[in-house]
């Protein structure tokens, strides 16, 4: 274990979004995470820096990878981890988020990890509890640990972020991953191209300092990274697209479209993937180009770093 610099502290009490963090905070988290990458590859993966601390994972939306990643991260740091599956909780009996928060707060947790279908749910929770709140995804707003693990993956492979050209393509409208990544990559000095059909492009997005594209080939041209997003059919209330096959034709990542990117371009995807809809299945598994598995691996390290730093 490397030594962390005790003089530096995260500027925020909670991790609600990348928007709230400074570059200093981000570098601090990323550096801390790098230490955990080594630990996670070693034979004995468990340390006890969070021993005696209680971590509650409060997931109002189904999740496999984020929830298990947070659970594992907490356990490897020695925390007592409780994962609450909301389908069998009081919310279904009409209890509000605030009620649940107050109940949990009475149990004196040290950290609450929350995922919720409504944007701003973590902000509301953070106002009502005494412990630190980590956002594991709120509605369409933010998913900060995903953006941090994406950044760590890019740095791991490309050794830097500044100056890179990064394309994010897909269902931007419903994507918290896209929003968090836009903030983070912008802050770290990348050039961000956003590619989406107009129906899935949020209004005034260019005000966030990105380049907008509806033509995928133009959008990925000369890019170092092509990040594909999942088509979130469960969030679509009405006709955004005519069909999946037409979407694949224009916005699915295929070898011919990837050819427009740099030769050494990497493919990323936050998962879970809709193979054959937003990404060609062979490309997704291409060991030389796809870093999708590495994203999952580094996700645990990033979450360990966040748990440690926000628990302090």
């Amino acid at each position, binding site marked *: 274990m490397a030594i962390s610099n005790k003089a530096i502290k995260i500027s925020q009490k909670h991790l609600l979004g990348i*928007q709230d963090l400074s570059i200093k905070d981000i570098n601090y988290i990323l550096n801390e995470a790098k230490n955990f990458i080594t630990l996670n590859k070693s034979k004995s993966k468990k340390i006890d820096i969070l021993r005696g601390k209680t971590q509650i994972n409060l997931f109002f939306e189904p999740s496999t990878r984020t929830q298990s990643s947070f659970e594992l991260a907490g356990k490897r740091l020695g925390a007592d981890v409780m994962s609450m599956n909301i389908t069998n909780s009081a919310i279904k009996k009409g209890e*509000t*988020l*605030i009620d649940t928060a107050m109940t949990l707060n009475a149990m004196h947790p040290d950290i609450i990890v929350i995922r*919720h279908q*409504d*944007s*701003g*749910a973590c*902000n*509301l929770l953070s106002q009502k509890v005494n412990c630190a709140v980590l956002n594991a995804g*709120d*509605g*369409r*707003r*933010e998913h900060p640990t995903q953006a941090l693990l994406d950044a760590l993956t890019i740095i791991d492979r490309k050794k830097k972020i500044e100056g890179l050209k990064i394309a994010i393509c897909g269902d931007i409208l419903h994507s*918290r991953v896209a*929003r968090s990544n836009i903030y983070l990559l912008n802050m770290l000095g990348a050039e961000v191209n956003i590619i989406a059909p107009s129906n899935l492009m*949020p*209004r*005034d*997005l260019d*005000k*966030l300092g990105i380049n907008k594209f509806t033509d995928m080939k133009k959008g990925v041209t000369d890019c170092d990274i092509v990040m594909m997003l999942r088509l979130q059919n469960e969030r679509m*209330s*009405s006709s955004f697209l005519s069909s999946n096959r037409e979407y694949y034709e224009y916005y699915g990542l295929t070898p011919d479209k990837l050819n427009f990117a740099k030769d050494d371009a990497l493919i990323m995807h936050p998962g879970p993937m809709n193979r054959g809809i937003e990404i060609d299945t062979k490309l997704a598994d291409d060991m030389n180009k796809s870093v999708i598995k590495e994203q999952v691996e580094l996700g645990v390290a990033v979450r360990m770093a966040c748990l440690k730093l926000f628990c302090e």
Partner: protein
Amino acid sequence: MMKKKYFLNAHIIDPKNSLDEVGGLIINENGKIDAVGKKVNKNNIPSREKYIDLGNKHLFPGIVDMRVFVGEPGYEYKENFKTLSNAALSGGVTSVVTMPNTSPIIDNVSIVDFLKRRGRDKSKINIYPTASLTKNLEGKNMTEFGLLQKKGIIGFTDGIKTIQNSRLMSRIMRSAFDLGSLVMQHAEDIDLAENGTVNDGIISTKLGLQGITELAEKIIIERDLSLLEDFNCRYHISQISSAKSIEVIKKRKNDINFTTGVSINNLSLNENDIGDFRTFLKLSPPLRTEDDRLSLVEALNKNLIDVIVSDHKPEDEESKRLTFAQAATGASGVETLLPLALELYHNESVKLFKIIETLTSNPAKILNIDKGNLSIGNDADFCVVDINKPWIVKKEKLISKSKNTSIENKKLQGKVLNTYIKGEELYKL
């Protein structure tokens, strides 16, 4: 019978009678206005009579608020007639038009008697109830405009809902034309606005909330104004929120008769005020951009907007302590309507006379009631206001039963000192 009352040295603004001068007011034994204006001075008062020297404080006709939600019947825990009345009086509001979105909904004659009785017995202000345009607010079958009017219904609106069906809307206009009824439309295309909670733009994008495009409002206004070409009934757009709607209004103002309202919230606040998911600022229509707000102020000055309303919508704390998507829509505001409107005067956006006109004589004219003026012989409904008095809005000090103010902690200038109805002092600061 009460005693005659004499007020001197007031800065009187009475837009209906084009009064803007320092003078006095005499109220007779029946609570009616006997004399008003600069000609009323000490010499008009018998020496044995006592008078009140207002020391140049302002005296306005009682405010007529055209858009107020009351919880009675059905939601008395949010607001009842008594609490509404007290809140209104503290803000100089003496007449309110109540929305039909109660439980049960005001959509048939049998409930109007109850409503009028409750309004009369429990409140001291003048209550003008509206009924819904369609039965059960379903947007399918129209209510009995004629019979409801005879019972004392002042106008028709689905309140927080819009008539979406164009054929139904044209039929409503024809009936309203025949019967002389006032139709008030909340303009929002439901399909465009579906699930929306804030303005569609950079704020909705950043907060990750579903936006409501300003086109949802514009399209309904365009449609209704087109339909009015055939049957120009009395038609009022309840509230507008965007520059795009003003463009349409400007184009049609000369060839069609219609009037337009705006909420004080949209005139004074913008989408940035929502900040970190402040649910008290979840409003309908939503707060829009600063450019939109400035356009609304300009439209008010150019007579393209006729009235300012509070859009008073009391909601209990529980229904606001939720995520933004789940929280109830609306803000309590009847008691802060005038003080917040005075901010537009203090920051030199709108002349004081214009503000008072849009709060008194203009709404009264649209409603066809003899209120909101200081005409001789009329009921002495008025308020005395220190337009410079500084104060800070605190929700725990609000009189309304619900504390969901959109302007918590806002520093305002201007406070109502006294409110009179029919010559009787019913509120004193």
